[in-house]
C-alpha cells in the first residue's frame, strides 16, 4: 500500500519529466484536431457563401478541397491519437504500476479472457460485446493474481410501438480482479450487493430466495455484512468456511475504500472480485493538460486499490492445506 504522499513525491521526481514530454505530443495532436475543425468550418462557410452569392462553380473547389483535407487529416489525427495514448500508457501507467508494486506485468492492450469472466458466474446475462485493456498480472508473496479493465455489454431487443429496436445495455464496466484463494474448496459461492435489504428492510428476504441458479441463500452472522451483501452458495458449510468472520470484516472495509458496489464469487479455489466503475480509467487526456497530479490521482487510486486487494483480504495467509 503506497500512501498518497509517497505517490506525490514519486510524481514529482519520476513522472513529471515524462509527463511534460507527453504534453508536447498531446499539444501536437490537439493542434491537428483544431486544424481539421477549422478546415471543415472554412469549407462549410465558403461553400455556403459561394452558393448564396451565386459565384462561379469553379470556386467550389475551395470548400471541396477543404473537406477532403479535413477527411485525410482526420485519419492522420486518429493515428497520432493512438500513438499518443499508447505512449502515455507505456510510459506513465507502466511507471505507476512499477512504483506501487515492482515485478508485475502490465499490458495496455490485454484483458481478462471472456472465458474467465463467464466462469466467475457473477454476471449471468449473455455477453454480446466484450472489450477491455490495461491488464496487470503477477504474484505478490504467495498469491497469483490478474486484473484488468473490462467493458461487457448485452444487446437488448425491445419493441417500441410495434417496431423492433435494439439498444446496448452495460453488463459490467470497471475493474475485474481474479486471484488464487488461500483455501481449497469445491463448490461455488457468490457474494452480491444486497439491493432488497437496503431498499425495503428485512421484509423482502424471501424475495432473495427466489434468485435462480445460484444455489441456496446463506444467512451469515455479521449484521453489517448481511445489510450490504446477499450470499448464495451450493454448500452452507463451505460458504462459511470461505467467509470467516475475519474475511467478512475485511470485505466490508474494502467495499468502503472502493466506494463501489463490489461483487465477489468463489469458484474453483479462485476468488473473483468485480469493482464497477463508470468512468474510463487509465486513458490519456486530449483536451486538457494531463500533467496535473489531480488527474493522475485516480490512476494511482485504482491501481493501488486493485493491487492491495491481496493484502486487504489477507490472501497471503496460507496456514491451511493450500499453499
Amino acid at each position, binding site marked *: 500500500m503506497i500512501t498518497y504522499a509517497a505517490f506525490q513525491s514519486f510524481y514529482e521526481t519520476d513522472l513529471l519529466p515524462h509527463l511534460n514530454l507527453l504534453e508536447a505530443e498531446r499539444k501536437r495532436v490537439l493542434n491537428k484536431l483544431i486544424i481539421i475543425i477549422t478546415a471543415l468550418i472554412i469549407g462549410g462557410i465558403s461553400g455556403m457563401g459561394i452558393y448564396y452569392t451565386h459565384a462561379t462553380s469553379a470556386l467550389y473547389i475551395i470548400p471541396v478541397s477543404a473537406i477532403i483535407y479535413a477527411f485525410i487529416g482526420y485519419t492522420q489525427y486518429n493515428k497520432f491519437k493512438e500513438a499518443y495514448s499508447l505512449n502515455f500508457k507505456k510510459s506513465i501507467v507502466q511507471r505507476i504500476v512499477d512504483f506501487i508494486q515492482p515485478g508485475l506485468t502490465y499490458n495496455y492492450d490485454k484483458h481478462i479472457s471472456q472465458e474467465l469472466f463467464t466462469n466467475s458466474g457473477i454476471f449471468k446475462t449473455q455477453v454480446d460485446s466484450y472489450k477491455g485493456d490495461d491488464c496487470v498480472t503477477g504474484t505478490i508473496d504467495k498469491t497469483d493474481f490478474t486484473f484488468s479493465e473490462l467493458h461487457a455489454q448485452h444487446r437488448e431487443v425491445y419493441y417500441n410501438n410495434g417496431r423492433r429496436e435494439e439498444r446496448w445495455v452495460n453488463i459490467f464496466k470497471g475493474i475485474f480482479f481474479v486471484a488464487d484463494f488461500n483455501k481449497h474448496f469445491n463448490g461455488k459461492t457468490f457474494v452480491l450487493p444486497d439491493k432488497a435489504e437496503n431498499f425495503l428492510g428485512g421484509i423482502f428476504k424471501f424475495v432473495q430466495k427466489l434468485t435462480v441458479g445460484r444455489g441456496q441463500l446463506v444467512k451469515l452472522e455479521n449484521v453489517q455484512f448481511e445489510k450490504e451483501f446477499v450470499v448464495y452458495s451450493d454448500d*452452507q458449510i463451505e460458504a*462459511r468456511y470461505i467467509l*470467516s468472520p475475519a474475511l467478512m470484516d475485511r470485505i466490508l472495509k474494502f467495499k468502503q475504500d472502493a466506494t463501489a458496489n463490489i461483487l465477489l464469487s468463489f469458484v474453483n479455489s479462485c476468488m473473483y472480485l468485480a469493482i464497477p466503475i463508470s468512468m474510463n480509467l487509465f486513458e490519456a487526456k486530449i483536451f486538457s493538460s494531463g500533467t496535473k497530479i489531480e488527474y493522475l490521482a485516480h490512476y494511482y487510486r485504482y491501481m493501488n486499490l486493485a493491487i492491495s486487494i491481496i493484502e486487504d483480504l489477507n490472501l497471503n495467509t496460507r496456514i491451511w*492445506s493450500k499453499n
Partner: protein
Amino acid sequence: MDCRNGYHEMMYRKIVYIRSKLYTFAIHQKNKIMYIALGIIALFVIIVIFMNNSLIVRKNAVNNAFSSIDVMLQKRYDLIPNLVQTVKAYSKYEQETLTKITELRTTAMSPSATMDEKIKTENELQKSMGKLMVAVENYPDLKANQNYLQLQGSWNELEEQLSASRRAFNAAINDYNNAVETFPTNLIANMKHYQTKAFFEVPEEKKQMPIMNL
C-alpha cells in the same frame, strides 16, 4: 271482461317469470358463495401444507448441520495419531502433552460419551493441541519438517471447517427457532409439539485460543 282477464293473465305470467328468474339467480348466488367458500378452504389448506413443510425442512436442516459437526470432529480425531507420531520422532520433551492428547482422543471417540462430556473433552483437546503447536516452535527441525507442516495445514483447515459447521448449525437453529416461535407457524409447531433448540455455545476457555486470529 275478456280484455281484463287477458290483462291479469299477462300480469300473472310476468310475475311467474320474474319469480323464476329471481329463483335461479338466488341459486346461482348460492353456488357462487359455495365456490368461493371452497376456494378459501382450499387456499387455507395449501397454506397450512406450506407452513408444515417449511417447519419440517428447518428441523431437518438442524439435524443435518448437527451431523456435519460430528463428521468434522471425526476427521480431526483421525488426524491426531499421525500428528502425535511425527512430533514424537523429533522431541523427547513433549511426552506429557502427547500422551494427554492421545488419551483425550480416545475419550472423545468413545461411543458412551454424552453430549456434554463430548463437548468438554473437545475443549480439553483443543487446549492441548494449542499447547503442543506452541511448544513445537522451539524445535526448528520439526517446524520445518514437510510432514509436520502438511499436518499442521490440515489441522488448521479442519479447525476452520469445524468452525464453519458450528456456524452453519447455529444458523439452522436460528431459522428453526424463528419458525417455531413466530406466528403463524407457531400454531403448527405447537400442534406437533416442536420445541425451540439451543445454540452451540462456545465456552469461555475456547475463546482464549490464540492460534487462529486471522
